[in-house]
């Protein structure tokens, strides 16, 4: 009988304790970020989709068309093409396509790049209605930036 009453009282008390906790939070300020109006800065290491890096001296890409990124990619979403040109040492980049629909943002390509010609963008507001919009021509993007 005593156990019975004790359980009722302790049980009821536990319920009031719970209510006390939630009401305390009720009067505390909210912690959420109101996304479209407020945004958080991206951390420097954020792994967005990749983009080509501009060489500060020449203003051109640093890519030497070695194809290491293409080989490192587990999902085969990078296509790199280059050609030999007169008077230029090494190959010249003609195409750098990222099929972002297949990319899993693992970053193995960036790691494999010896000349550090690709980097992660901090772009995360990616939404669209067409698949084609996500086949990025990174070379054009770089040129558009210039």
């Amino acid at each position, binding site marked *: 009988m005593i156990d019975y009453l004790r359980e009722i009282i302790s049980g*009821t008390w536990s319920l009031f304790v719970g209510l006390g906790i939630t009401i305390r939070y009720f009067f505390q300020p909210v912690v959420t970020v109101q996304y479209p109006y407020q945004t958080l800065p991206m951390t420097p290491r954020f792994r967005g989709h990749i983009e080509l890096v501009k060489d500060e001296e020449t203003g051109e890409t640093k890519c030497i068309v070695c194809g290491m990124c293409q080989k490192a990619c587990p999902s085969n979403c990078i296509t790199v093409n280059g050609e030999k040109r007169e008077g230029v040492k090494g190959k010249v980049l003609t195409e750098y396509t990222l099929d972002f629909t297949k990319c899993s943002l693992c970053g193995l390509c960036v790691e494999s790049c010896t000349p550090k010609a690709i980097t992660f963008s901090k772009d995360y507001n990616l939404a669209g209605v067409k698949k084609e919009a996500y086949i990025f021509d990174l070379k054009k993007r770089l040129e558009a930036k210039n």
Partner: protein
Amino acid sequence: MYVDPEIIRLLAFLVGVIAFAALNAAYLVWLERKEAAHIQRRIGPKEVGPFGLFQPLVDGIKLMTKQLIVPAGVDPVLFKIAPILVMVPAIMSFVTIPFGETLVARNLDIGLLAIFAFASVNVLGLLLGAWGSRNKYAVISAARVVSQNVAYEIPMLVTVVTLVMITGTMNLHTIVLQQQGGFWHWNIFNLSASPLMPVAFLIFFVCMLAETNRAPFDMAEAESELVAGAFTEYSGMGFGVFFMGEYANIVIGASMATILFLGGWDCPLGLFPGVLWFLIKMYFLIFTVIWIRWTFPRTTFYGLLNLSWKILIPISFFNLILTSAMLKVF
């Protein structure tokens, strides 16, 4: 042409009551969302109007423009009648609730009985809707609703009987009048009648939660178990009416607790009684109901049966016996 002013008064009250019930149902959804959000440290609805105040309006329009799907295989009559059976009794109950000294549509001598009779129809509506929609989850929900009904009605009515013994009347208006003059006159603190009155209030409140299918007793809906329970097959306004009925029932339950235990329109300090006090008390109770929902996990229906038969019923009977003994002695 002579028209009885009583009829005009009744009609005005009817319109008022329906408007009150619908407005409450709509804005309690807003309150629920806002309160839940703040308990969880979010903001909640904020896009439509200031503080999201027009959100219920938009929701209502959305629900009304949606197609009313009547799935193949359901019992068409039961399926359609069920939401109405939940909503209409709730509105009917408002007729006899005294919001203020003079603010009552029809003061019945058996007001208490009428309200509890109407309140039980709610269960019938849920049962019919669940059964009629021929969905396995809904059928399980129907079984739960009935077992839940058995569980809470007894302690609730025993508590009310205790109260009727003290007051000696079933007229809600008279019950409130007896409690006038400050919070120490309220039934919840009427310790000379029975020292267990605060406990009786708790029992009544718990049973009210169960009656209105609110958490932690929302086994009929139990979205993490039964998807949406009785409402699984309902769409558009069919679901909307169920929803509004649920909130209307909460308003009834909170009003009843206010009238029976908290002195109705009486001011706690005995000054300036009025409808405002009634509303403050009622909305505070509704706030508590929502607060409870966003705090506790759900019980199981056998948990509710255990609670009812092992704890609530013995205590309420004990209270009944104690009260009658004290009435006899003093």
